[in-house]
């Protein structure tokens, strides 16, 4: 179960990434953030973001155009 949820629905690149960064910076290490996005480009982008920042992408799920990314702050 996520500790925080960020709804980035309707937002386009690079806003989901910027808002994810902001949300994570307010959280403690080990906490879980769910990011909801409707931007298909964010699938690759969130993966790249986690790659570069060292945060852990636990899962990506898609449900009729809505993407949910579960990220653990590292």
């Amino acid at each position: 179960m996520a500790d925080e949820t960020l709804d980035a629905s309707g937002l386009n690149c690079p806003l989901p990434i910027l808002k994810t960064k902001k949300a994570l910076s307010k959280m403690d290490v080990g906490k879980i953030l769910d990011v909801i996005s409707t931007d298909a480009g964010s699938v690759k982008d969130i993966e790249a973001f986690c790659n570069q920042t060292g945060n852990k992408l636990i899962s990506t799920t898609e449900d009729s155009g809505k993407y949910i990314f579960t990220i653990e702050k590292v």
Partner: protein
Amino acid sequence: MTAKENNKMTIIATKGTFDWAFPPFIIASTGVAMDKEVTIFFTFYGLNLLLKDTSKLRVSPIGNPSMPMKLPFGPKWLQKIDFGPKLPNLFWQIPGTEWLATYLMKKTMAKHGVAKMEELRSMCQEFDVKFIACDMTVDLFGYDKADFIDGVEFAGAAMYFDEAASGDHHLYM
């Protein structure tokens, strides 16, 4: 691999039209979000991107044949038509057409959930992107330093080199 070891990035922003305001701010804000240390050096027309009042920024369809021009509203069939290649350059000489093209681009961006330029710019500042305005072109074009947003440093090309001394992302836009 994380970017920690070599995390410096610089951008030279040279263009001052509304559309070209986006690439430097998008790349810079995303860069800092991904733990890079980013500096943007604004020179020549790029200085316009640092003004407090950005309402005068326009897109210029003149001599820009690659610019798609679709209506962001109206019936579906109408929205599909790309007016860009259909309208002769002469059309854009008519007063008010540049304003119209800018208005339509803003509408299209809002419809697609693209951030406003000012929003991206303030996010850059919030994430500590360093903004340097080229002192020489500020003088050359007679800008008043009071017209620029807070947090801008004024310096020359040598400072750019100091900023670009490390890292391997250095972009010219």
